[in-house]
């Protein structure tokens, strides 16, 4: 406890405004504390549950559109602003991932935006990767890993951005694996009202990248969506909306195993995770409706920003820990 406090004060001394991913450091700690003090003075359980619900609507909207879990919002919002114990905040965030995935995933399947076969194929890589990551977690030191991952994410952000302006070289080598597994798909573009068929390229490499995404999520406790969406969109040339929708559909499966573990440990508090779940379901339904109208360039820009934010968090965590 005192060690934790010392660490916290030394961080404040260095005037570090840390950022937080699923389980790690903290954004604007001072503001969070002041806010938390105000919150605990006036707030009743009902008010806090309502606040959790409202925050979760936002998390569900963002998470469902970008193909991420929404843990980026849920953990800091609950633990820093609302004073929820970090254990329960993380427990609630894993529930929020599942709620986003199932809620928005169902809507995307109905709208024919998910490439289910591709999703299920890549799920094998992400779940295997997550399991290996959990094994490696005790054996690898996180520091350089975080720095390396942060740099990789910055490169990914750059690749995403470049992709936006169509400057990349397209190679149209047919992919035998994609053909054999019947991964090529058709999606309904709600903006133009037409059916768009597309092919999947570099399936093997995409599978490997998804495996890495799984390992990273097991090792560093981050959602794999930040790697999966660019892997599908930039690398495998799947339309961005399909990539985001497929990622949304996939993340629930990987999260389900962790959620089972968190539940067994007693980290999933009904009064925290309950309002989170309902809020996220509402948010993901709103988000999945917005997705139809959203244009890909805006989505790509938003995703690039999220990538940079997560990259900076990772670099910061790696360099200051």
């Amino acid at each position, binding site marked *: 406890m005192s060690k934790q406090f010392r660490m916290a004060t030394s961080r404040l001394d260095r005037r570090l405004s840390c950022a937080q991913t699923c389980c790690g450091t903290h954004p604007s700690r001072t503001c969070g504390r002041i806010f938390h003090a105000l919150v*605990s*003075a006036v*707030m*009743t*359980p*009902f008010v*806090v*549950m309502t606040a959790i619900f409202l925050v979760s609507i936002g998390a569900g909207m963002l998470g469902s559109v970008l193909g991420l879990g929404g843990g980026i919002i849920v953990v800091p919002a609950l633990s820093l602003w*609302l*004073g*929820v*114990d970090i*254990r*329960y905040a993380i427990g609630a965030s894993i*529930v929020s991932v*599942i*709620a986003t*995935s*199932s*809620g928005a*995933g*169902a809507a995307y*399947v*109905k709208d*024919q935006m*998910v490439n289910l*076969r591709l999703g*299920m*194929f890549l*799920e*094998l890589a992400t*779940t*295997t990767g*997550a*399991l290996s990551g*959990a094994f490696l977690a005790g054996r690898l030191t996180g520091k350089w890993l975080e720095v390396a991952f942060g740099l990789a994410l910055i490169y990914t952000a750059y690749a995403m951005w470049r992709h936006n302006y169509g400057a990349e070289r397209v190679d149209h080598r047919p992919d035998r694996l994609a053909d*054999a*597994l019947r991964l090529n798909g058709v999606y309904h573009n709600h903006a133009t009202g037409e059916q768009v068929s597309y092919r999947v390229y570099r399936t093997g490499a995409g599978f490997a990248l998804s495996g890495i995404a799984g390992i990273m999520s097991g090792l560093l406790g981050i959602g794999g969506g930040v790697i999966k969406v660019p892997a599908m969109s930039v690398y495998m040339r799947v339309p961005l909306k399909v990539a985001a929708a497929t990622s949304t559909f996939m993340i*629930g*499966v990987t*999260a*389900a*195993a*962790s*959620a*089972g*573990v968190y*539940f*067994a440990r*007693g980290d*999933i*508090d*009904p*009064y*925290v*995770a*309950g309002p989170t*779940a*309902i809020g996220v*379901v509402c948010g993901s339904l709103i988000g999945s409706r917005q997705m139809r109208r959203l244009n890909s360039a805006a989505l790509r820009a938003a995703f690039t920003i999220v990538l940079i934010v997560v990259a900076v968090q990772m670099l910061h965590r790696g360099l200051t820990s």
Partner: protein
Amino acid sequence: MTTTSPASAPTPMTPLEKTEQRLGLILRVGVAVSATIIAVGLITSLVRHPEFLSDPEGLKRLTGPAAVFPHTISELPGQLIQLQGRAITTLGLLLLITTPVIRVCASIVMFTIERDRRFVALTVGVLLMLVISFLLGKVE
């Protein structure tokens, strides 16, 4: 007699699309049912504990490290019989957590029916990974 021009009729679904829609339905039902149970549980809690609306101290009991709620599945039935709000909410959360797993199981069944051996193997692999990681986590 009515005649419909083929152009205006909705395009018929391929068998693959039908399968996909069924999987989507599983997710939808899972989310709707679990969200309803969670909401019922939370409302029950608020009705049974009016102090939740007025007592700022209650928050620490709820969100602090020492909060009391069903930790294990074996505790759950007893509390459910007493219609405790938190137990109902926990039941809903459990159902929500299981929904993706049910979806994976359902896809194994569907690929088996379609005789798509590659994808049966793939989805069985995914399920296996889930079971292993859950069991390992529990041992830890």
